[in-house]
């Protein structure tokens, strides 16, 4: 039995629906109902056993249960219990409020297998309210053009939309066609996103002053050429570093991440105080060093099949 296997496996536990965690072609899959719905949307006829938060099952004497990770809709940590020992795999997680998914629940454990995507002390995600305010100010100053935001199609896009709504922005939001089904799926899971319009095939004039959301790959693509004088924004934790934003030709960096920042990663470790921490993808070296400085036992766990920075 594998967790988030990168190759087709006979039996797979899947933490959440992002492509580098949820691959297609597994035999049996256990995941939250939301994650299964996302996999079904992406891969067609994916079948699996739904595991609502808190539910579990037993296999080979190991009790397996799913707990909210706060990363995207349906994202879960997986708790493994055997002979009194508890191992938690966080998957990707964050501790901040997110209107589109259930909040992270700290789970007591002996061994914590944590992510470290933003495991460097330079990564502090600012309050999302500040970033949304920055976005709305840029839009107000851009009456003749539009704001084009690059955001990952699963999770980030819906979170940005939901936060815009929470900030009182009730105009239609224009989306790239590739995002429509995922947004519909979120809406069907009681995440209201307000009025969304697919931007494909619309006249330039119609999108003046609009906010348009597209996958990051579409930002410098021909697709973006039909937008009226766009300011290119990107919603990602990597935008914290100026050179990273510049490398991607981003004019309006929005530091919005669905991963734990340095403070969240380290505070979670202090809160849970596992007797051992295994650090997976991301900056295993830096978070490992921090554990050493705080007398926490830790080691790096290298995983295959993970590409740096395709989301965040």
């Amino acid at each position: 039995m594998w967790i988030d296997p990168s190759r087709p496996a006979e039996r797979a536990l899947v933490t959440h629906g992002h492509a580098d965690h949820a691959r297609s072609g597994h035999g049996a899959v256990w995941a939250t109902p939301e994650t299964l719905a996302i996999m079904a949307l992406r891969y067609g006829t994916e079948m699996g056993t739904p595991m609502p938060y808190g539910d579990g099952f037993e296999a080979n004497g190991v009790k397996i249960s799913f707990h909210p990770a706060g990363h995207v809709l349906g994202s879960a940590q997986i708790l493994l219990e055997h002979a009194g020992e508890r191992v938690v795999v966080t998957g990707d997680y964050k501790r901040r409020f997110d209107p589109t998914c259930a909040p992270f629940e700290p789970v007591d454990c002996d061994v914590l297998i944590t992510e470290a995507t933003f495991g460097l002390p330079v990564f502090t995600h600012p309050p999302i309210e500040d970033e949304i305010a920055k976005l709305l100010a840029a839009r107000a100053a851009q009456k003749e053009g539009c704001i084009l935001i690059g955001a990952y199609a699963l999770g980030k896009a819906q979170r940005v939309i939901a936060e815009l709504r929470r900030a009182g922005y009730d105009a239609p939001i224009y989306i790239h066609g590739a995002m429509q089904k995922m947004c519909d799926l979120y809406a069907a899971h009681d995440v209201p996103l307000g009025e969304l319009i697919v931007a494909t095939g619309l006249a330039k004039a119609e999108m003046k002053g609009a906010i348009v959301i597209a996958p990051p790959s579409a930002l410098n693509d021909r697709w973006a050429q039909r937008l009226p004088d766009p300011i290119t924004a990107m919603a990602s934790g990597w935008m914290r570093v100026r050179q990273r934003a510049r490398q991607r030709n981003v004019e309006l960096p929005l530091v919005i991440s669905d991963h734990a920042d340095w403070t969240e990663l380290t505070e979670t470790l202090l809160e849970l105080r596992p007797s051992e921490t295994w650090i997976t993808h991301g900056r295993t070296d830096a978070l490992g060093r921090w554990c050493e400085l705080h007398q926490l036992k830790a080691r790096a766990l290298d995983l295959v099949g993970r590409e740096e920075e395709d989301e965040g």
Partner: protein
Amino acid sequence: MQAFSALIDGLIYTRSRDHKVRLIADYLRSTPDPDRGWALAALAGTLSIATVKAAAIRAMAEERFDPMLFRMSRDYVGDTAETVALMWPEVSADAVAPTVSEVIDLLNSTSRARAPNVLAELMDRLDANGRYALLKLATGGMRVGISARLAKTAFGQAFGVSVDDVEEVWHALSPPYAALFAWGEGKSERPDPADSAFFRPFMLAHPLEDGIVDLDAYAAEWKWDGIRIQIASTGGETRLFSRGGDEVTGAFPEIAAAFNGIGVVDGELLVRGDVQGGEAASFNALQQRLGRKNVTAAMQAEYPVFVRLYDILFDGAEDLRSQPWNARRERLERFAAQLDTVRFDLSAIIEARDFDHLAEIRAAAREAAIEGVMLKRRDAPYLAGRKVGLWYKWKREPLVADCVMMYAQRGSGKRSSYYSDYTFGCWTPDGALLPVGKAYSGFSDAELKWLDRFVRDNTVARFGPVREVEKSLVLEVAFDAVHESKRHKSGIAMRFPRISRLRRDKPADEADTIANLRAMIG
């Protein structure tokens, strides 16, 4: 500080020059004195805070952060000041951000020893963007892609005055430029230029694509491979300006000191050496000196510089710019006669029977300091910028060599996700490859994708951002010239190398040898 840090970030993220000018102009209009004056000085490179050096920032970091975590962070971010700004503890909600002038006053009134503490107290009052702007302001280098000329252009745009008028009064004023802003806002008379020497925009050339020109209408000169320079002198003071209008007097003090004429002349800064005009390494030395505010006597002695003059804009106070090239040339020859021949000479006119003859002369010229031929309309006035049909540059045909790709590095900007910078080599007699150059242009987007894939699939070793590749791909490299170079193990260096073709068909062992390249030295 918030408005200033927003401006700095705006400039960092904005690609368009016009938009940058607009951002600065908006800031200068909406910010009170003396903050905006200090900001203008920071952008124009005329602000210097003696108490803060880069070492102060490293000292601050070492005192507060674990050295290993700091090093890892610094390696990732790539900039010490930004790393410190990002790692610094978040500002408390009740902190009051300092103004730009408060920052300047505090730093100017402290000692070098106390400066790190003063800086740290200021850091505690700012958010991450403010901390970044503070550290950049304190250490000088803003690195926002703004030249002094562009800052002055923005001032001109902000207050509806001409940039040439700004230039004229600029050197008579000093930060925070209160008199400049008072004039800009119409509250006082234009400041007195006080007999100062100032920059006039250069006349520039279009490339001669494939036409021919009539040599009765155009004069031909060599195009020199040095640094374009303008010398302006009032007799009282002499200043040197580079292509963009930035003052470089401090970088070449021996030129300014030797200039004993009054007026404004245009020419090429070159190094006198065995080869008239200098070898490739000396061009690099010139480039390095260009960026300095001061140079040592040793640097002056190592590469003796001189200026080869080719135009005159002012003779004394007389403006010659509206006169035809012919008349200016005559005045220049008379003007140059009074100058020190060690530091100044005249760019010769090429005598050719006709255009074909000129093409022959151009093709035969392989001297290192010659980049090609300039064609200047004999009846044209001296006009700022690039005007169609008046001046042409006609570069030499490039040389080519087949080289083998050795290393690749990720590009910057749009290309940061591609391996787009390639180091290539040629063969030694004993069958080893030695690097002879590095290129990052000349290929199409489709070829770039193919090259990137090649690098990823053929990596044999990694050194930080650099990948060493299997020595199997032949690149045809075009370059303007090849020179002796002590800095390279191969002993040679190329000028302006670029990839002209991918020779996927050619086996690596049939690529050129170092000896082949050496034979092309001009």
